[in-house]
């Protein structure tokens, strides 16, 4: 065994230094490299922008009459439906509901999901005294439950009965959908999911059930599937006469 020379100690130092530098450098660069791949999702610090306008297209011809998957998926995602034990049925939250419509003349029956229509000019936002009822830059309409005083004027104003008032104390809430007694809530188009580049729960459930009646996408992107489909076959607004320019559109009604 050769005795340790001063050079070899220096070498060891160099080696150690290089290793550590590489490790530190790697640690610094790696997240950028790795996270860049999932960076489609909007970083939390980045503001929601009006470059997008999120919308949902409902094809009522594909919507199955007995199917309730979109509703249960929404309940699962946002934690409503089972949490209210004291409220009467007409007091319980309904973020999304299946509606059956029958033509009085022809007897033609259709089924469709009805939820917040995410209007461009939402009456609920107009009437809210505190600004709790608000529209994000990307068109999603939702309630800031920190400043909602529970006056229910938005519920009076909504043409779609899309909003619910919470009539009792709630437990077992979802982290992504905090809810509270005495405030108003509604479909938020699964904003926490949308911000991470995922589809709303109802849309995902509809695809999983192989109905494909719900199509989610950016109405401002002419290349998006929803825009292409709307351009090709059109889509109606419920109560178009009110001129609200809804983000949720329907085909087949």
């Amino acid at each position: 065994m050769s005795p340790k020379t001063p050079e070899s100690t220096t070498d060891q130092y160099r080696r150690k230094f290089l290793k550590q530098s590489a490790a530190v450098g790697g640690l610094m660069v790696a997240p950028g490299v790795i996270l860049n791949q999932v960076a489609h999702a909007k970083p939390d610090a980045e503001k929601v922008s009006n470059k997008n306008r999120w919308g949902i297209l409902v094809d009522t011809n594909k919507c199955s009459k007995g199917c309730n998957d979109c509703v249960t998926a929404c309940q699962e995602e946002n934690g409503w439906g089972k949490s209210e034990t004291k409220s009467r049925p007409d007091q319980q939250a309904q973020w999304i509901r299946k509606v059956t419509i029958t033509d009085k003349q022809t007897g033609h029956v259709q089924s469709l999901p009805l939820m917040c229509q995410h209007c461009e000019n939402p009456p609920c936002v107009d009437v809210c005294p505190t600004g709790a009822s608000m529209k994000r830059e990307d068109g999603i309409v939702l309630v800031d439950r920190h400043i909602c005083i529970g006056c229910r004027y938005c519920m009076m104003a909504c043409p779609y009965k899309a909003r619910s008032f919470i009539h009792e104390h709630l437990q077992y809430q979802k982290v992504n959908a905090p809810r509270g007694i005495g405030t108003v809530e509604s479909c938020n188009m699964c904003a926490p999911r949308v911000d991470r580049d995922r589809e709303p729960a109802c849309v995902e459930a509809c695809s999983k059930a192989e109905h494909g009646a719900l199509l989610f996408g950016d109405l401002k992107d002419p290349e998006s599937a929803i825009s292409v489909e709307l351009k090709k076959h059109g889509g109606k607004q419920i109560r178009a006469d009110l001129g609200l320019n809804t983000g949720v559109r329907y085909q087949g009604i």
Partner: protein
Amino acid sequence: MKKPVFTQIKGNSSGYWMLLALLGGFILTALGATYYMEHGGHYVTGMSNNIVWGMPHVFAVFLIVAASGALNVASISSVFAKTAYKPLAPLSTLLAVALLAGGLMVLVLDLGRPDRLIVAMTKYNFKSIFAWNIILYNGFFVVVGIYMWTMLQRSMNKYSKVAGFSAFIWRLILTTGTGSIFGFLVARQAYDAAIMAPMFIVMSFSYGLAIYMLVLMASYKWTNRPLGDATFKRLKNLLGVFIAGVFYFIVVKHLTNLYATEHHGVEAFILRDGGIYTQMFWYGVMLIGTVIPLAIIYHPTVGMSRSAVGVASLFVILGGLALMYVIIIGGQAYPLVLFPGKEVSSTFFDGMVNNYAPTLAETLLGIGGFAVALFIVAFAVKVLRFLPESLADEAVDPHHSK
């Protein structure tokens, strides 16, 4: 005409203390009802996600509307320079402020989160008529408060005309705002009409004066102060005109709606098929609130009886509450029309007439609003000089001949 002498009431009789105790009891009951409704949530009320505004709003909106109307007597004296109304003006401002306080208490205590009142006072969405109303209500206290001061303090008297004029303008805007709460609801068949605002103004004239007359007659009777026929006749005839005015607006509103086919559904619901709402309209608003009071007031002999006119005033108030019930709750009970020409059904009662049965707690909270208003008046007339010592004919009418 002699200058009216305003004095406090003595307020030391057992009757006075019993009145305060009675009103205090109603206020405590209302607070108890609030605790009951707010502690566990609104599930204990008759309100729901279909009928979101219930009995508390019927009382609250009525009181707020009546508040601005109660100011009318003062406005007639300072804005329209009718000297005969001058002795009546201070009580008019007091009643206006008191009724508004009562109405707002009911409104605030029915909020889902009344603890967040500070949020409502600090965060404003200026496109909301509700937010404007918060400013208008607060401003009403200030403007009418100043007006009251200019009347009560002699050195301030010279400003009372200006203050009275400001208060008059303010109350017109305020009631326009209250009516517009409903007028601006585009989605609902029963609302969404510009006529709501002027209709609410005329309603305020009528309800405010009816309450004013009852308070005036009661306080003069209980304090043994003279209330002459001249004042009495003047006020009751004015009430008659206001009742007829409200009737006119109701007729115009329904006739306009009946002309438009799209509103036939909701009109048939209110006027013919709506069950309790139809009964409320015909028996409550039309019979009790309009026909009977008009008949009493304009009857040559019955119309001169103080107690008969007192009953007429009470009926105007009951009819007003009935009209509020029909407008606020009947308007929500009628289903929203989402798909014209189609039958709709869902787990959320789409396409069905919405049920509402007011609970005792809601009603007690509403009555508490009246109690607060009357308590304020009863207390204030004891500590400040609101009431003229005499409203006898020779004291108020310069041309009175015996």
